[in-house]
């Protein structure tokens, strides 16, 4: 048993609050809320994003206080704000801290639109997972990721769920198990950090595709077609981004795909659904309260695919629909007309 005193959670979105409540079953939690109005709302009402906050959760916007009080911290802020938060907390972090993030997105701070063609190094020089960002910005070495089919709304209702904690360090995994132990939350472990991160990231575009499909009402066969081919393309992209395949085959990959592609609880799925119903992306974006990570991921995955000359017709079609205003019907037609290839070509 590790001597955990308090646990920090950075990010007060729906998953942040869900995680804070879950951990509070075992330890006191310090929850970081970046925006003042959110902090005020939570402090007054003890409720946010449709969830009631446990009494053992203390909300603050003081990162120093969190770093000083908590040696185990779960950052779950959106990928676009992740680097910023890491930069802010970095002065208070030491190699004695352990970070386990739950952000299913990529950081592209260094990437303008596309990967420069004449650049020598591969795309991982520009495209970072959240663990890369932690390494770049802080002195923390011991880190991990928590990922899987963890729709916050269901966990908040007390429904059972499973997740995977991946880290190269056994002690990080042990700490996560100790902090998250719960009769309704089953934890699995993995050593494939990058694979688990990328699986969680790359499944988001497929969730958008599923949403579009649902709006178009194309039937179960077509949905299975989309998910399976999407999975195959995810692995192809993951591989060139230097990840193992094991992360994709578990809860963070297949598991999360099944959850987010089957229902409308996922933000990415909802975005897809609205696109499928004919709404414009910019209108949807302006109405969203929280980030739909998948939109950015489509853009990045598309660049990576082009850079490495991969064959990813589904990701290409998604890119065209989202950013080039192609009609979903046209994109679907193109997908069906793409050349016949081997079913499983990633093993």
């Amino acid at each position: 048993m590790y001597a955990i005193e308090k646990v920090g959670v950075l990010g007060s979105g729906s998953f942040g609050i869900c995680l804070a409540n879950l951990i509070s079953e075992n330890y006191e939690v310090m929850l970081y809320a970046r925006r003042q109005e959110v902090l005020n709302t939570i402090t007054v009402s003890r409720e946010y994003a449709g969830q009631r906050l446990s009494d053992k959760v203390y909300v603050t916007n003081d990162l120093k206080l969190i770093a000083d009080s908590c040696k185990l911290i779960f950052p779950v802020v959106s990928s676009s704000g992740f680097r910023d938060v890491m930069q802010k907390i970095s002065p208070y972090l030491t190699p004695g801290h352990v970070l386990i993030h739950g952000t299913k997105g990529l950081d592209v701070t260094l990437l303008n639109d596309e990967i420069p063609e004449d650049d020598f190094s591969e795309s991982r020089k520009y495209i970072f997972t959240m663990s890369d960002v932690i390494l770049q910005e802080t002195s923390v070495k011991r880190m991990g990721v928590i990922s899987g089919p963890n729709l916050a709304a269901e966990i908040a209702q007390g429904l059972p769920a499973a997740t995977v904690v991946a880290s190269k360090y056994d002690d990080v995994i042990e700490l996560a198990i100790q902090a998250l132990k719960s009769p309704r939350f089953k934890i699995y472990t993995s050593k494939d950090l990058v694979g688990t991160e990328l699986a969680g990231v790359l499944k988001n575009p497929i969730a958008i595709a599923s949403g579009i499909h649902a709006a178009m009402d194309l039937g179960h066969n077509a949905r299975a077609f989309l998910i399976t081919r999407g999975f195959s393309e995810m692995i192809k992209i993951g591989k060139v981004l230097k990840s193992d395949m094991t992360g994709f085959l578990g809860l963070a990959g297949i598991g999360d795909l099944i959850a987010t592609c089957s229902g409308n609880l996922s933000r990415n799925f909802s975005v897809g659904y609205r696109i499928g119903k004919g709404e414009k992306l910019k209108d949807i974006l302006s109405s969203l309260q929280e980030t739909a990570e998948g939109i950015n991921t489509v853009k990045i995955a598309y660049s990576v695919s082009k850079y490495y000359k991969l064959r990813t017709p589904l990701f290409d079609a998604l890119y065209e629909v989202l950013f080039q205003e192609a009609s979903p019907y046209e994109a679907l037609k193109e997908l069906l007309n793409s050349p016949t290839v081997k079913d499983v070509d990633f093993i």
Partner: protein
Amino acid sequence: MVDINLFLRKRDIHQLYKYVVDDEEKWPIFRYNKKRNQVIQLVKKYTLKHFVENSSDNIHELIAECLYLEQIRIKEQPWRVDPSDEQEFWKDVKYKLKEIKNKSVLGESTKRLEEELLMKIIDRYAQEIAGNFKISTYRIATILVPFILSKIFNASIRIKNRKEYHLHKNKSYSLNDKVKVIGNIELIRKLSTKGTILLLPTHFSNLDSIVMGWTIRTIGLSPFMYGAGLNLFNMYLFAYFMGRLGAYKVDRRKKNQIYLEALKTYTKISIDYGVHQLFFPGGTRSRSGSIEKKLKLGLLSTAIDVQCENCRKNPENPRKIFVVPAVINYHFVLDAASLIHQELKNIGKEKYVTIKDKSGSTWNILKTIVKFFSTSSDMIISYGEPMDVFGNRVDENGVSYDKHNRPIKLFDYFSFNNQFLWDEQRNSQYTIELGERILKEFLRTNVVMSSHLVAFTAFEMIKKQFKLPLFDLLSVPTEEISLEREDFELAVEKMKTKILELYNKSELKISEELKGSLNDLITHGLNNLGLYNEKKPLMINKEGKLVTHDLALLYYYHNRLDGYGLEKLFDV
């Protein structure tokens, strides 16, 4: 009476820097060696303790396995250096092991007997591994070797410049004119008094350990300890000097657990004692000619463990280990042809090439030395930035800093919530990360020389011309290969521009020729590339075209710039 040592020290003209610690008796290696017997006792004690704590029920099997492997080794790979009583010793072990077995069948307790036998084996290994540094041998070697080498060097300069004899007549060139040492030397010198230095060079040539030994002295550090392959001790001349110059013996044939643990314990104790270490983390010489892509993590893992232990003992101010990567840069490697041949055989047929290596004889090594020092070709030893075992920058007081220049407490890496934790898995992951960091530092520390640049450019152009897979390309008859001088110049220019760009981003270092004109760069490169290899890897023929006599050799020298993604320049 004339003090011969004082005399020898006065004659010392090859040292660029004064010794950091002048009093030889205060040198860590000297003090360590004075305690040689105590050290051996400690190795025995800790190695035994390790097995008793971790596999007390399996000591019989442990010895049996060791015996089995040793018997195979004695039969299949006997060496001249092996002691004459080997057969006898292991026969005795076999006999005793049988006796123990018989007793245990009768229900008697055999634990003590097993431990005694294990101790006997550990003792034998510890005696073999431990070096025997002799200050007198060290003094003689440090005078004699540079003296002879500079004589060869001076003579060759005079012969080569016969026409300008008057210019060189009264000049005495020292090795410093030939071997350039670059890097943050002052910091390394200061750190040598604050903790243990782990000097980790790349490994290309047989000359490397001699060269590194020489530069360590040039920059005024006391001698380093280093693990030398036992095969080198097969040669009388080397055997005589090496042990006395601080080498301990590493026998790569012995893969049994008892030996490996004894070896690990020996290095652990010496690192802990503060004896600076020289270690080639690549293991053997690079077969492909490229900078190491994978490291042997053995010694690095020992370093992490010692650092961990030191943090436990003294959380606030632990004794530190400083890692200094270094890259040795040559224009030619005498055995390049045989090395690349082994590499190609390795990757081509997936056939393991044994350690039997023709180039390893005394004669061959001496030949390399003479050839090297009688050419005008120079050598650059580039020291990388010193860091702690986590890759953090350190200042002259040995304080570690994170990326934002905030001081770091190493204890934090080994603890959670201020509780120290011994965790082997965590330490082994730290070791992997240290290895990765060192590989990156190698690339940054590497000095691009003119010959590397022309070799890389020419090979990439040939590759593009033929568009064949590597092995097919290498079997193209050399008569069919030629490059137009003009095209070559253009390509070299493109390469030079890119390399300067990388240099400005501190992603590599460059030699002086890269700062001069394109023409001089090409001439210098072609003159120096593979200078003493039997077949020229690249030359200009009568028609003014670039041709090769050995494409595999050109490939070898080309590989030196592998790892920067420069081949993409030739994609278009």
